[in-house]
């Protein structure tokens, strides 16, 4: 197809969603009454009209080939009138009106290697970033760790046997494109050495004032090197966030031996019961150990198992820890508490224990 003869199109915007809605959704839009969980990964929404919409949710690898998307399209044609959607956590959902098609669809999804689940008190898909597959600032791979962690936790995806929902997220550097900062468990790629400044190219590829102002701790200072404008890094002030590298390619900080992962716990975005909260540091550093990252997998599954065993019904990870206290969390999980767990950035005092209330 040649497009040269046609006028060039811009600013058309996305297609309107109503082009893609199944008839049962159009008919009952805004008139849903309640929903039930028929099985892990299977929801039934009932409308005021009495109509029923069955949703079958399956895991996707997020990094999906067009071959797999065509498979999803073919399954949608066969089972759900050609209608499907994706969730905010990268699951694929088929929207059915015929209840008898649920089991055959589940069977085909299972045979094709896409587990059905992720609803209610299950672990849903891990929200994650690009990693070594496609990012310049990654301290680790994202898809690889997600694959390994979810291989180990797949039964928690296909069964709803946790005290509450559990959300895991992974970001491969502090930029947090995966917004891991409010997840029950976050896996965060970290650098641990300051950038290695490429003085030879810096004046050509970077604006020095922008570079200096990019540092959250003011660790970057102007410096003349070999007669040219460049910068120096006050290494004690650098916490390896990589923001300088984002604005200046002459500040790379990837380092095979020192890059790795940190684990954070207890965040949530929902307002249910307790207010939304940030994830807090559990493990400051674990090594990058591809291709299966056993240290990370063990750390995450340990936290999940201890939580599953100890939390009350409806308690998210953060709510459970608030009830039992952080000392008990570290004791139960066997995670070492270190000086790195003590905040020393802005407003640090807000996390210091400002009472005599101590559990023994």
């Amino acid at each position, binding site marked *: 197809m040649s497009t040269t003869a046609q006028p060039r199109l811009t*600013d058309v915007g996305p297609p309107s969603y109503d082009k893609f809605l199944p008839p049962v959704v159009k008919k009952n839009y805004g008139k849903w009454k309640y929903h039930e969980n028929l099985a892990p990964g299977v929801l039934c929404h009932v409308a005021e009209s009495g109509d029923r919409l069955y949703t079958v949710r399956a895991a996707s690898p997020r990094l999906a*080939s067009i071959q797999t998307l065509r498979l999803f399209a073919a399954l949608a044609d066969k089972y759900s009138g050609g209608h499907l959607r994706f969730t905010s956590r990268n699951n694929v959902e088929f929207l059915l009106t015929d209840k008898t098609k649920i089991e055959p669809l589940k069977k085909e999804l299972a045979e094709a290697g896409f587990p059905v689940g992720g609803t209610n008190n299950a672990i849903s898909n891990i929200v994650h970033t690009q990693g070594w597959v496609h990012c310049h600032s990654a301290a680790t791979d994202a898809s690889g760790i997600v694959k390994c962690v979810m291989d180990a936790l797949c039964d928690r995806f296909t069964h709803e046997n946790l005290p509450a929902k559990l959300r895991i997220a992974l970001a491969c550097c502090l930029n947090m494109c995966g917004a891991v900062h409010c997840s029950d468990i976050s896996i965060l790629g970290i650098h641990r050495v300051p950038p290695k400044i490429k003085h030879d190219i810096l004046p050509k590829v970077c604006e020095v004032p922008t570079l200096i102002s990019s540092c959250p701790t003011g660790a970057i200072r102007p410096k003349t090197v070999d007669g040219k404008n460049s910068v120096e890094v006050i290494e004690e002030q650098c916490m390896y966030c990589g923001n300088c590298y984002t604005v200046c390619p002459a500040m790379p900080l990837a380092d095979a031996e020192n890059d790795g992962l940190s684990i954070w716990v207890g965040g949530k975005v929902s307002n249910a019961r307790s207010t939304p909260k940030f994830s807090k540091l559990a493990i400051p550093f674990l090594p990058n150990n591809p291709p299966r990252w056993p240290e990370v997998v063990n750390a995450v599954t340990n936290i999940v198992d201890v939580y599953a065993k100890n939390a009350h019904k409806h308690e998210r990870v953060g709510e459970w820890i608030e009830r039992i206290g952080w000392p008990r969390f570290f004791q139960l999980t066997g995670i070492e508490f270190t000086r790195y767990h003590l905040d020393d950035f802005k407003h640090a005092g807000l996390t210091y224990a400002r009472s005599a209330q101590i559990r023994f």
Partner: protein
Amino acid sequence: MADGNGKPKTELLDQLEKGPWPSFVKEIKLACETSDAPKDLLGQLELSYKEKVGHWKHGGLVGVLGYGGGVIGRYSDLAEKFPKIAHFHTMRINQPAGWFYTSEALRTICDIWEKHGSGLTNMHGSTGDIVLLGTTTDQLEPTFQELARAGFDLGGSGSCMRTPSACVGQARCEWACYDTMKLCYDVTMNYQDELHRPAFPYKFKVKCAGCPNDCVASIARADMSVIGTWKDDIQIDDGEVTKYAAAGLDIQKEVCGLCPSKCMDWNGKKLTIANHECVRCMHCINVMTKALRPGKEKGAVILLGSKAPIMQGALLSSVLVPFVPAEELFDTLKELIGRIWEFWDEYGNNRERVGELIQRVGLPAFLDGIGLDPAPEMVTAPRDNPYIFFQAEKGGNQ
């Protein structure tokens, strides 16, 4: 290094084809059926797994004519070894609100991407866009035009209005307190210029969540978080409450006991709610989906300022307007966004998000700037320090 099909040897990556979870390595290998680029991607990624470092260079400025965003430039630093991914740019495509598709629409995207790109995608990226992963500079414009003719457009990148996103809302959820997908679509269409042509100090994200469960994580991930809520009483179906109790639900313990404002009472027969004390958290409604529903006077709370840590620390959005009726949301949002952008444009530093600007200048000055009155809903408590900057009053008492 390569086998007969030109696929590289990938001893480390092959270990990620095992196990019950869907494998991205399988996906990259599948994509080799229709493009050569994924073969080089496998080769480079295998090397990253061996060396424990990435091999992508910093993005350059690439895009389509007339747009300042929507394409993320990506180049391999091993271009000689992996020439098929020497350029491997990402195209962000604005998703349909709520991520609904027909099989036909999905196939259309696949066909275009088979013709012009690597055949690899993310469904979807963190902000919500369809992410088409990997193509060369010369293919950007043809891909863009074919997508445009199919009714799709690029999403945002850089210092612009980013692609808004929404939860499934009223399309499938009984809790949605406003039409999230419509609001998302209306906002997206209204700000096409700001979305495609970055002119802000930094990025600006809008996310529409239908209820306080916040399935799109708007309170953590959007500069402007629009979260559905209601003003009047929770709707109770007493008959269904009784059925839950009969079915063994411990209403006292699991519902009343976990209510954050302790506004519920269960006497063994009847559930009563002191609605003026209810904080609209959703817990009781989540537990008893058939018996309890949000009230009828619906709308949203508008919160402002969330972001990830870079650079002054992570922020959650905080309350700007405690309640806007559903039917007034779009107009109110447009008015607010206009005032906020004007203030941000004037006072924001380069690469300073709105939330950080508020932290720097203080909420009182920000409210003065956008012409909103302070309200007690905006804070968890009044200030606890006495360092008050009094303003000279018009009568001249100072």
